[in-house]
């Protein structure tokens, strides 16, 4: 037992496999689906099939967001001396590597969506059986409610006669909303009761009450479809409610929120992956321009571009290690809300900062579509926004550090 922050050897194969996928499938299709927004990347079907063939326990399959939490049970055995490097770290490492390839394609990997995480976190046995293995999207955000989940206005009314819930409302920013088989919809049983009344419902994508309103045209991650839905008397059987149907002052919602604690380090990892792509390529381009990074000399004794690179790389290293720390804590069942948000905050802002600076260093080469740097600078910005913006992370962190409630520190 000793302090060690290197990638465990046992995950090296996973990382290598993920890297191969990133190089061979993601990178080769990066520009194609950036240009062809809203076109489904059919190359992913084959990949998804391969992944499913390998099973969920390891390999590239561990890389999707959908497996977080779900496979915790699979490797309960501690590795050694009470320390465990488990599925959270494995997922993170694979995901980071894939996002080094292309974060847009990662986000639209079939059957790897965020909805799976929600189902895995809250579903009962019967639901796991029914929904497991299907591609599930997550519909939370509404036009008038951004980070404020208590303001959700989509309603779920109980129809006693039909034993069904009737959902009405509007959902925006649903990742893979068009392509998924299921959409996990957040709706309120009673908007007057705030967060406690918010439940998640699994809606089949072909439910006629779930109407695709439009697909967003976006700054980046254009390979991934982002859908807006209208729920128009959308009828959902009661068996599709995840968790308890009771409105309890505490519990139900926090179960749903738990999903976010698990996924925050993953989104941080995505930013770490994209930022590394930027750094790797910039290092190559700088080398072609005759600039080598010298770690023995102080940055101020080097060319400006080398100093700039070391500055970026150091922030990247901090973001990467914070992300690994959060995953490691999750594997070891240490409460990691603070570290998860620190990782997300640091990686989100650092990713954007690095990508934009790399574009500038690479000049016309970086700004043009001949390289992927400009695309990464567009892609990465979403990672400082979704799954909790920078501001939300800082709120979570400072409330925890200062011991404040959301009423005191707004």
């Amino acid at each position, binding site marked *: 037992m000793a302090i060690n922050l290197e990638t465990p050897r046992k995950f090296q194969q996973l990382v290598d496999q993920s890297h191969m996928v990133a190089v061979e499938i993601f990178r080769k299709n990066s520009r194609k689906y950036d240009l062809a927004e809203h076109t489904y990347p059919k190359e992913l079907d084959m990949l998804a099939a391969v992944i499913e063939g390998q099973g969920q326990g390891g390999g590239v399959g561990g890389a999707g967001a959908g497996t977080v939490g779900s496979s915790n049970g699979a490797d309960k055995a501690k590795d050694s001396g009470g320390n465990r490097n488990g599925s959270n770290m494995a997922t993170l490492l694979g995901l980071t590597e894939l996002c080094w390839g292309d974060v847009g394609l990662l986000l639209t990997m079939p059957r790897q969506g965020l909805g799976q995480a929600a189902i895995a976190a809250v579903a009962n046995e019967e639901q796991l059986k029914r929904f497991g293995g299907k591609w599930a999207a997550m519909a939370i955000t509404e036009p008038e409610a951004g980070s404020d989940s208590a303001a959700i206005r989509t309603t779920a009314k109980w129809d006693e006669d039909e034993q069904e819930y009737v959902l009405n409302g509007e959902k925006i920013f649903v990742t893979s909303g068009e392509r998924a088989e299921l959409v996990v919809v957040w709706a309120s049983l009673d908007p007057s009761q705030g967060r406690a009344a918010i439940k998640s419902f699994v809606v089949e994508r072909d439910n006629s009450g779930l109407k695709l309103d439009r697909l967003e045209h976006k700054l980046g991650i254009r390979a991934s479809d982002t859908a807006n839905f209208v729920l128009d008397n959308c009828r959902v059987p009661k068996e599709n409610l995840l968790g308890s149907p009771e409105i309890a002052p505490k519990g139900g919602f926090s179960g749903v929120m738990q999903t976010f604690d698990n996924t925050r380090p993953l989104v941080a990892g995505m930013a770490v992956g994209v930022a590394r792509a930027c750094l790797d390529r910039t290092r190559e381009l700088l080398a072609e321009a005759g600039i080598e990074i010298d770690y023995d000399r102080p940055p101020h004794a080097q060319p400006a571009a080398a100093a700039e690179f070391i500055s970026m790389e150091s922030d990247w290293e901090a973001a990467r290690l914070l992300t690994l720390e959060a995953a490691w804590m999750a594997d070891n069942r240490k409460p990691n809300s603070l570290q998860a948000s620190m990782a997300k905050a640091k990686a989100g802002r650092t990713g954007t900062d690095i990508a934009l600076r790399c574009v500038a260093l690479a000049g016309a080469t970086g700004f043009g579509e*001949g390289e992927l740097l400009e695309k990464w600078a567009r892609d990465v910005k979403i990672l400082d926004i979704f799954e909790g*913006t920078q501001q939300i992370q800082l709120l979570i962190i400072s409330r925890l550090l200062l011991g404040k409630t959301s009423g005191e520190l707004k």
Partner: protein
Amino acid sequence: MAVGLRALNRLAASDLLERLGLRESTERLLRGASKTTAQTAARAGRTFAAAQKRSKPARQPKGERTDLFDLTPNDEQQMLRESVRDFSLAKLRPAAHDADGGCAAPTELLTQSNELGLTMVGVPEELGGAVEQRSAVTSVLMSEALAQGDMGIALACLAPAGVATALGLWGDADQQATYLPEMVGDDPPAAALALLEPRPLFDPLDLQTRARRSGDGFVLEGAKSLVPRASDGELFIVAAQLEDEGPALFVIESGTPGIAVEPEPAMGVRAAGTGRLTFADVKLPVGALLGGGDPAVYAECVALGRLGWCALAVGTGQAVLDYVIPYVNERRAFGEPVSHRQAVAFAVANIAIELEGMRLATYRAAARVDQGLSFAREAALARRLCAERGVAIGSDGVQLLGGHGYVKEHPVERWYRDLRAAGVMEGALVV
């Protein structure tokens, strides 16, 4: 009063007051103007031929050195700025989304922008220019106002003006007689300066495009990157290393054999139709050399180009600020406008602070140009601000809108992309 805009006023006087009073009249005017548009010339380009050749080049006189610190534009500048801004907000902004997607500025808008007399600002009056005295400040104000509508379309409009200004500043009698009558005419050719080269850490003082003397002229080899209006451009001013004499500028017609053009769309300023020009064994006459190959002329051109990009960044930054203020006031969360949160409000405050700093630094450098003072240092400082602070403004603009900032329904995502240009581009336009 140092700067007069008599000719320009003559050009647009009848409509100018109307425009200032009423946007509707502006739109009517410009819709009207579009009907008289001539066909855009093909890439082969028109034939440029010297008209009345003069014995020596004409130059706009410099303004007198003023002594007092003053931030108020003169009356002409104010009117010009307002009319350009009216035009840009009314016409460029609504067209920006599609122009960005299609990588081309609408022909109609390019034609209408000619009517604003952009190409006349830097041309001596004897040669059809509109402005009595040389004023980089006026160019900066116009560029800033145009970019408030859209940076990409603004660049498409301003690139020819940059060529006209360069010819006005450094052209010899032959060059001025050959090109300026067309540049100030009803149908000025698409044109641009081309300094940037496709490589990391580009330094305009270290060019890989090379010109060698050959017989009575020059032979050019190399490539230029992200040239605005590359495909429809008829005239380019291209920077190349002239043997071991230093970097120099060459006036090149697009039809010259050996020039290849390919589209080079980029992260931002896509509406400018950026492309790559490749020069393979391009033979140029001796008269193609601009400014006698003087390295000081070239250095001045580089600095004036940087100020052009600063002006575009300032205008775009202003667009961001003007957009986010009502947004964060109207957008509600947790029961009140998000602008009631310090993190949101302070982000807006910091945009305003840094934007004003960018603007003042740009104005200072431009005012030094007009007063005949050195301005390389001031242009470098303005550029650094506009590159670094500008890109932060673009990023904060998206962040303030959250997920909504990431979709093309709102223009902030475009400004995020465009504002990176000011830290990447060199040349392409001058003020």
